[in-house]
């Protein structure tokens, strides 16, 4: 979009910490996803706020959560977002694409490519917090129910974008609240992980 400002994760502070770098990346993704949402609304003439139904399932936030739990939570949500986004882009291209690529398609590609970078960052932070033996969340087996009707598909794609937008913002806020140096904590039981399944 003309005149749109861009954000860079490379701040002036070259000695930025890993959580800060991840937070900056999440900020950037949030900004890019907001732009994508705006472009989508404009393209589809969605003047109404069509839905706020959640697609990502993670444990609710709590003040009792420690750093590792917070990281695990956002990492899990972002992984789900990635799965949803990839499905949405593929399905949208299949059902509604085929024409000329424009600004919307470019922005969609940008978000799609940025999200894995954030997931990588949060994954690194999670590893740093839990140690090599820790279990990272997985989306294997996550079923994505794609609507059959094209309007339902559009509404679903919109929800996916909103999820990415929401979780990128949440990730940014969470990462900013993290201490600059993440100290490894003791290994958690796998049982505890299993309770925080990402499956719906």
């Amino acid at each position, binding site marked *: 979009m003309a005149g749109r400002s861009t954000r860079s994760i490379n701040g002036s502070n070259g000695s930025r910490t890993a959580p800060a770098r991840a937070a900056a990346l999440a900020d950037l993704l949030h900004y890019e996803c907001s732009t994508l949402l705006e472009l989508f609304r404009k393209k589809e003439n969605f003047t109404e706020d069509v*839905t706020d139904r959640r697609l990502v399932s993670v444990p609710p936030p709590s003040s009792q959560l420690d750093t590792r739990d917070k990281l695990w939570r956002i990492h899990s949500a972002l992984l789900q977002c990635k799965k949803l986004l990839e499905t949405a882009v593929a399905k949208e291209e299949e059902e509604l694409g085929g024409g000329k690529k424009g600004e919307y398609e470019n922005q969609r590609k940008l978000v799609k490519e940025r999200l894995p970078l954030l997931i990588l960052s949060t994954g690194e932070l999670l590893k740093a917090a839990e140690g090599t033996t820790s279990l990272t969340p997985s989306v294997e087996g996550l079923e994505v129910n794609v609507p059959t*009707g094209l*309007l339902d598909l559009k509404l679903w794609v919109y929800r996916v974008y909103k999820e990415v937008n929401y979780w990128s913002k949440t990730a940014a806020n969470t990462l900013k609240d993290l201490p600059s140096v993440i100290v490894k904590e003791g290994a958690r039981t796998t049982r505890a992980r299993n309770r925080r399944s990402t499956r719906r």
Partner: protein
Amino acid sequence: MAHLSLTPTSKLISSGFVWLLWIVLGFSTSHTHADTGLTVPQRVTLSPNWGTQELSISWLGGGATTFDLIILRTEFNETVFYETVTPTVNKVSGLHQWTWTSVNPLECTSLSVKIRSRDGHTTSEWSQTETLQGNDHPNSEQRVKVFPQDKVLPVGANITFCCIMDEGMVLDKIKYDGNTTSVTRLSRRTYSTTVSNLVASRQSGSNMLCLPEDREKLYGAVVFVGYPPLPIDFKCETHDLRSAVCQWGKGRDTHLYGSKRGTRYFVNNRDCSEVNKDVGQKEATCTLDTWEGNWTLVAKNLLGQYSLTDTAELSHRVCPVVPDLLSVVADAWNASLSWHWKYDSYSSLALVCQVEITATEDEKLIKRVFSGVGLRSVFLSDLYPDEHYSVKVRCGAQQNFWKWGNWSKLSSFKTKTYVPDTPDAWLWLNTDNTGKVVWKPLTRRQSHGKLTQYEVFLWSPEENRALAPAVTLPPNNWSMPVNLTEIAFFSNNGSVVAKVTARNDAGSSPPARVHLTSVEPLAAPRIVYTDQGFPLFWENNANATCGYVVEWLDAFCPQDCPVEWIKLPAGTTNVSIESATFQPGVRYNLSLYSCSLDARELLKRWQGYTQELVPSVALTLSASQQNADILLTWKEIPLVNRRGFLLGYNIYNSTGYQFKLLENVSDPETMSYTAKDFAKGFTKGTFKFTVKAYTAAGENTGTTATVTIEPYTDWLILEILTSLGLVTLLLAIVTFTCYKKRKWVKKAFYPDIPEPKLPSDWPRTRGPLDVKPSPHSMVCVVETPEYDCIKEMLVAIPEEDEDDAGQGIGDESVDTDEPTSLRYYNQMVDERPIRPRFPDSSASSISSMSSAHTDVTYTGIQTSGSSLVLQLDPQGSSECHQPQLDRSVSYGGGGYRPQMQPRAPSDDMGLPSPESFLEPQAACSGGYKPQGSWQLDSPVDAAEMGSLAPSLGSPTSVASTQFLLPDGEENTGEKRQLSSSAASWLTNLLSSTKP
């Protein structure tokens, strides 16, 4: 908020009316059925086509060919269709069938169908109602709530959507592509809307949204609106002389994209869709392995299909492939280009190939065409040495040319170096026989390689030897100084030729020959510049064996001038000289030389400007007055500042607010101008003269000189003298004439007064006049103090001896002895008779005294020498004379008292105080006093004046030719004296004429 067109109340009313109609119809049917025996249709079956929204209705029996068919929306019992139809009949099974197309999708709401037979006006009973259950039925398990879903329609079509709301959900509005539409309620839960004249949708389709009031759920559908395909320009060709490559244009945008809705292409039933998915490409291609000769292209999408065909022989559709592997072998002036063909079959193909050569230096494009069977190499000639080139090739079939193949990739090469071209040399000489041999720098195209040096030889043609060792100059030096005087010395006055050569790595160029000879200058006529340059014409010169040289340079360049020249072949007789260095306002000398083996000869010379300008400097102007003329002189404008051919000068005179052209001097050689008699009309003043030189471009700013004109005194003196002389001459003539005609003058102006006729007994003796003198016997004309009262006093003329009047003045002894009388010397021009003189007549005195108003000509009032003389100074030394009182009494009793009322004698009246006599004015106050100066100095004076005062200062003479009032000027008395003298002179003159 959508407007719902139907309300439950209206539905009920409507359904009541329909049931009433049913009853009436049923009654009528049973009535007619009783008459005709038509049977009721049986086994009514409904078969919906959801996609096309068609409802196929079939039934058996009925015994008629026409049937009444009624379709209602079940829930609201609204009639959707009620018509008499003629169904198709299956003759074997006897099944009747009729298809109805619904405006709304069939899923929107339940529909009820009934049929009866009709034969004219006779109908059977209605069949049993058959219902097609809609998705708004409570038992419906359909999840989709909006119909139709994902429809594809052509541009301009109409579409009706319906929304089936969940139980308890209220519809707020329906939006199509962001715009709210009008809504119709079809059933309790179903609402519909129709969008007409659809426009082409975007790539992802147009959205229809059913928005409930609580916005908890959203329903909707997408519709794609576009065009059927319309491909263009379908042609097939071959590249390898075996297969066919078909091409076409995709034509208009269908607005339908993707694998499901995009256009699919088929050539001879081969699917070519996959290779043409890119919607950005306007062209599509499809390759067929063999040449079939006939091709059919079918383009289809969900809205329709379009076909194009093509037919051709293979030899007519050959489009060669791109030449590959270009290689070049280059020489200095040419190169050999070869390439490779992908297919061996080209070896027998007659080809025509285009070769495009581009020189790197000037990017000039050279196109050359070659042909031949299996052409794979060409020879490129006429290239330049030491030049970078790039080349590319494309080919086509020589026979049955179809089209050019694509261009090959560019191949670059460089030609070899070669000896330079001969330099273009020339000789420029100053006036002192020094000069320089100059030559033009060789361009890259002329150098044929990097120049290393120039060499100059001085050569004697007669002796065929070099006069001096060659002078080597660096390649950035393009001149060599020469001195013809020195050269002539060591060449024994023989001719000398300078030979100039250029050298590069490939060798030396052929020498340029320049004859080192001076030429005599020629007159240079003017030449006018045109758009094409200076047009030069001359007659062919037989001696110009090697052509001509036209040389040009700044005409006012003094030394070592930058000269330009052009060499022309022999036989040339005209040329237009144009140069980028030409400047406006610069005079150029153009010279034509003939070129021969022996010498150079100046044939002709011209001078001209590319554009004349006004002179750049002003004149040096001086102006001077010469008598009545103004002489303007100026100096010549330097040639270099003229900037055009000087045509003359305009001379202006500026008088402050006017700028007047005095003269146009059309001779530019004139350096002065005389404004004749310019100063004559002016007494004095400052005048500006401006002289402007002008060329064809106009005047320059001019120079102004100021001249202050002095009065032309000589002339004035001359005029005055002339006038005086004329006056003198006139006076002399008048005097002479008067003298000659004095008798006539005397007669005319001073006729003789006849002598009075006296009776004989009139006593002739003189005795005292018995006239009682007036108490005031004095007439005094009031004058300035200095005034000589004598001159203005009434002069009593002696009656007897007029000629000796002067003698009588002051002769008191005479005066006292002789009776005194007043004689009025009348100079009036009126014709009143002059009063006769009565010297001793008291009557005359009485007469004269009886009237205070006397006709008096003061200038002519004279008295005899013995008459009363008003003398203030008893000794006669004073100019103002006042008679003494006793004398006045004694002698002045008959004195003249003009304009004064007679008064009674009084001792103390009219006697001025002794003091008053001391003052001249006071001295005169007792005499005549004009009104202008009369006044009472004091009450005492007034009292002293007594009754005399009212009459003083009031002269009453009306016949006087002299002013009664005195002149206020200081020298009035003197003037009077002069006037009196002149009068005396004239009187004497006239008197001298008396017999």
